[in-house]
């Protein structure tokens, strides 16, 4: 996926127009080698900003928050089997889960890639 087509949360998740969620390249770089991914159950409803998944590196655990409210429609089984995909392919094979957004307008309220890049220049590490 081209990051320019995505929207970004301040907590470093990206979300595509179809509701697919993953971690930004900046976030995966900060987290370093991902060794474990815990995904939400399909069907679970999440609020915007609610912890939906946990990504762990050798060093530490990181919460992944739902960028918008919605229901978990699908999860990526490949990233569970091969957590390094989060590092190797953050915008494609390393996607985590797909949300069915409760309110499609929420997507527009998130940062564009351009704004997100400015944001990470000044923000604290993930």
């Amino acid at each position, binding site marked *: 996926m081209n990051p320019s087509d995505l929207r970004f949360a301040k907590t470093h998740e990206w979300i595509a127009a179809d509701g697919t969620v993953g971690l930004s390249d900046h976030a995966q770089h900060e987290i370093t080698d991902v060794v*474990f991914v815990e995904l939400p159950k399909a069907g679970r409803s999440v609020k915007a900003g609610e912890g939906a998944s946990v990504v*762990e590196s*050798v*060093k530490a655990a990181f919460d992944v928050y739902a960028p918008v409210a919605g229901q978990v429609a699908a999860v990526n089984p490949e990233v569970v089997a091969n957590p390094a995909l989060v590092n190797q392919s953050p915008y494609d094979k390393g996607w985590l889960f797909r949300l069915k957004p409760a309110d499609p307008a929420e997507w527009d309220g998130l940062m564009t890639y351009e704004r997100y890049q400015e944001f990470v220049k000044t923000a604290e590490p993930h």
Partner: protein
Amino acid sequence: MNKTPFNEFHKRGGGRLIDFGGWQMPVQFAGILVEHRAVRERAGLFDISHMGQVSVTGPRAAEFLQAVTTNDVAKLAPGRGQYSLLCRETGGVVDDLYVYELGPEKFFLIVNASRRGADLPWLKGRLPGGAEIVEHSEAAGLALQGPDSGKIALEFFPGADGLEKNRILECSWQGAKILAARTGYTGEDGFEIFGDAAALKSLYPRLQAAGAVPCGLGARDTLRLEMGYRLYGNDLDEGHSALEAGLGWVVKFDKGEFVGRAALLGEKERGPARRMIGFKLEEKGVPRHGHEVLFGGKTVGIVTSGTFSPSLQVGLGLAYVDNALVPKDAREGLAIRIHDRIVRAAIQAPPFYKKPAQILTSPVPERGHTRSHP
């Protein structure tokens, strides 16, 4: 924040620097997993200049060390080292350290970075006349670790490959006298090199060019934990005794009086209230410092160190558990609370990692514990 003599090297080498016990240290360079693997398969290079280097000299130096450390200093001889502890009168651990005998009336200690401030006053407060303590606060330290270490060291220090495990050798590098010990904190063959900062700064790039991969504290932690080596501040502290920490093998009651002896002896007779166990997860997950340990559904202890083992591809760690609640022979039925999940675990005595086909460089591995500290 304190900086080691290698600080500029770390920055130039792309090291990600963090604060570790008041020292700016690299947590990783290329990545924890590749560095870990380099040490298990070839050779890695660690900056250990943050660790305290202390000389104890004088006619009463041996007697002094015998009285303040738990291991038996009389078992040392010039050129030999031993893992040991400083304990409080209560038996709680002040620090874990390495004690080397360099020569007659001349000893050399390596103590934890985070305990330098505590150890020196503690030692000086018990110092008799006839013994002197000097901390070499400007000195540098490097650890060359991995199966290729012997070959690499030989290029720079003639005779280094003949140095046996736990032994220390005074050698010369570009005119400076330095110390090379066959010790480490990774479970691999290797050397810890101590001495003048300028000399070691000229050695660092040469070791790197010879194949040693710069490694950070992240890999140092995963490597030591695969061996079950304790880390002061995580697994050891003044609130847990040497016996609870499972370090009774370096507490020598028969050597005579030493600080903490009475308390430790009483505890040994009563049986310690807690014990340190090694555990391995039976499901996916990464245990961390502070996670609860459950047995039969009840909270029985706390994880002190945990990680994902790069060599074994499993979550593992060390924990203190209540002896009254976890039977000595228990192996199954343990669980770790990781975030909101209860993850099954099995008790397993470290080392977790064993070399596939071990080629011993020393004829007699001394209890398998060669270690110093992060």
